[in-house]
């Protein structure tokens, strides 16, 4: 490394950083303080050399900022999904008496609601497992995909409920969900944008959800390969749909149709979204 002044080093470090905002300003200020102390004690050349290559230090800090943004956007996503669930319930209760939803909208509503809940849970478990450790950019990208999917599905849940069951309700309560979804989407896109600049591989990260659950809860959660996980999930979801329909006094044949639709939806979503969401990999 050629002899550099502290100012030259800080200019290089600043240019190498991708992160913007308050975290970047604080980091540069701390680095400046450190280098000033070191230069006063050991001379500028030694201080700069001991600090490390600016590109490597910038990459380490960018990765930390991306991880922090990933975690914060997960909390925002959770708030957005829960608020949308509340707004959707308000919408349903505000619908005209006796209104019944067309089958296509009803199916969209139930599928989107389940996708939102499952993907938000996947993101939350991943974030809780990684909240105190280093998080490679590929993991932040996976977290962003899970959060983004949860938010889109939550939005679709509300749209399908509103389209299927027109009515009147409190605008504040109905708009609270979409507003928080919008805020969360901005947070997710910020995390994703930074992580994409740091991850040059473009490879999709895989993160088996049951392993994360075992790490988080320290319970003996069994390991299942993708095929078995799909089989178990499909069976449980279809059985739950059948029991719910029978509980609402539907005929056995009607409940079986509902269970069949549920199973098809689970398999379809697993195949369509599972790889992007890190549930399985080729």
């Amino acid at each position, binding site marked *: 490394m050629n002899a550099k002044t502290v100012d030259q080093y800080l200019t290089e470090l600043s240019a190498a950083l991708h992160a913007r905002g308050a975290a970047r300003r604080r980091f540069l200020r701390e680095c400046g303080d*450190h280098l000033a102390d070191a230069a006063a004690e050991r001379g500028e050349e030694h201080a700069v050399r001991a600090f490390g290559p600016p590109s490597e230090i910038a990459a380490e800090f960018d990765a930390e900022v991306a991880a922090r943004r990933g975690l914060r956007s997960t909390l925002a996503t959770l708030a957005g999904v829960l608020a949308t669930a509340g707004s959707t319930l308000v919408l349903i209760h505000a619908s005209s008496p006796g209104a019944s939803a067309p089958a296509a909208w009803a199916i969209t509503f139930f599928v989107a609601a389940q996708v939102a809940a499952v993907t938000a849970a996947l993101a939350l478990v991943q974030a809780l497992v990684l909240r*105190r450790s280093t998080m490679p950019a590929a993991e932040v990208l996976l977290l962003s995909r899970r959060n983004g999917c949860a938010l889109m599905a939550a939005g679709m849940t509300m749209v399908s409920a509103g389209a299927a069951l027109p009515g009147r309700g409190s605008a504040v309560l109905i708009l609270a969900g979409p507003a928080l979804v919008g805020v969360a989407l901005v947070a997710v896109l910020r995390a994703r944008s930074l992580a994409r600049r740091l991850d040059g591989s473009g490879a999709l990260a895989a993160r088996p959800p049951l392993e994360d659950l075992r790490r988080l809860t320290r319970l003996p959660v069994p390991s299942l390969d993708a095929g078995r996980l799909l089989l178990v999930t499909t069976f449980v979801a279809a059985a739950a749909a059948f029991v719910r329909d029978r509980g609402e006094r539907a005929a056995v044949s009607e409940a079986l149709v509902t269970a069949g639709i549920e199973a098809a939806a689970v398999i379809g979503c697993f195949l369509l979204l599972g790889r992007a969401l890190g549930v399985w990999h080729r």
Partner: protein
Amino acid sequence: MPRPSMYSHGVRADRLRGHLDGLLLAVLADGPGHGYELGQRLTRGSGGELDVPEGSLYPALHRLERGGFVASAWSSGAGRRRRIYRMTSAGRRAAQASRREWRVFSAAVDRVLG
């Protein structure tokens, strides 16, 4: 082991990377301090053997803060404002756990290396 001249900084830094958080918590156990001071404690405590790039301390400190192991605040003193880091109770527990893990790990490596 002789210290290879060409790659000495990189190899040592790589070996340290997985332990930097635990080392920082250990030096923070001696009391709060700013980044430069903590780096000095690390160097003194290791007799100068730990050759971590000083710039790596800050991403690690920010990571420890994200995990709730340390807290920080700007503080003015001697005409300068500095970011002072202090350990939280979760950090104290993590430092103890880190010590335990290291003893188990180093004992195992010792047994294999002889």
